[in-house]
């Protein structure tokens, strides 16, 4: 078949020009799909949906003033924390099993006298909290009794235990959700605290 000027392009000619573009589409579309699927799978498999990101990171601590647990002479107010330099705020309750698990670590940190540990006793019966602390020891510098849980909500607490790291300016720099393990302390919190100059 001979070609002459002005002839409409033959099928073969058209196939030749269309082929590379079509091949590109056949590569790009599945590639885009694969990337999307990989991202979603990654999120699905490695995400921690039970850990809600805190809205309070880098914000000043919420203002509050709480009564002490009966038998303790001081309660806890936001002013105490703001004056206390780099510190930890630990949300705990006697009814909370995991709190018992992390308690020895808090005792240990308190014994090192590194920084104040403020206790937020969340929705607890004050007398239960008192006997819990008498039995297991009290690692806290001061404890506020959050009977209604309202202060906890202002801190974005949704489960105990939770532990916040506060910098020297009274800002929340880190929130740990769930049991604080020795490893969490060594690898995350302690380096952070040393960084803050605590």
């Amino acid at each position, binding site marked *: 078949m001979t070609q002459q000027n002005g002839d*409409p392009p033959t*099928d073969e000619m*058209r196939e030749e020009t269309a082929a590379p573009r079509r091949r590109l589409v056949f590569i790009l579309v599945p590639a885009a799909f694969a990337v999307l699927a990989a991202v979603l799978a990654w999120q699905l498999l490695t995400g921690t*949906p*039970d850990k*809600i*990101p*805190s*809205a*309070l990171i880098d914000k000043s601590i919420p203002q509050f003033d709480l009564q002490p647990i009966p038998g303790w002479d001081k309660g806890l107010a936001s002013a105490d924390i703001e004056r206390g330099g780099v510190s930890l705020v630990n949300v705990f309750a006697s009814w909370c099993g995991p709190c018992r698990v992390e308690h020895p670590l808090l005792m240990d940190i308190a014994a090192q006298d590194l920084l104040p540990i403020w206790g937020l006793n969340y*929705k607890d019966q004050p007398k239960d909290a008192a006997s819990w602390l008498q039995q297991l020891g009290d690692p806290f510098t001061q404890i506020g009794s959050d009977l*209604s*849980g*309202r202060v906890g*909500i*202002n*801190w*974005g607490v*949704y*489960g105990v235990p939770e532990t916040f790291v506060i910098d020297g300016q009274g800002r929340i720099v880190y929130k740990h959700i769930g049991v604080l393990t020795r490893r969490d302390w060594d690898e995350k919190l302690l380096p952070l605290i040393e960084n803050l100059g605590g």
Partner: protein
Amino acid sequence: MRLTALAVAVLILALVLHAPGAVHAFSADEALDDPAQETRALKLHDELRCPVCQGQAISDSNAELARDLRRIVRERIAAGDSDDAVFDYLTDRYSDFILLRPRVKPANYVLWFGPVLVFVAGAGGLWFFIVRRRKRGAESAPAPLSEDERNQVESMSRDDVG
């Protein structure tokens, strides 16, 4: 066989009794006096996610925190907050996570408009494909015969007949 039918019936009955609508009955909340405000509060309760049992709205959850949050929503409304102000109050504490319906803001544009974009791109691609195919179909039809060619064909067919 009859036993299976019975089991199925029991299962269906159990599911019906546990239907989501029935859950509301458990929450012994104190309603607001103003019915219009209470209606708003109940609507917002459906829009807020319980941070503890995350698949559920706070209206559906029996978690203690969900109950506290329901009460807070009522308080804010009674204090004169708009719906958006209530949402702000809670996202300030629990981040956007607490909203079951993500807000339309730049960080969520992909979420909101992504599907529309994918649909438009797909529909556009399909349209392009069909148009091109149709055009090619028209082009590959043989060119009309010239005068000479037509005569030739006619003479040939006459030959055949003859």
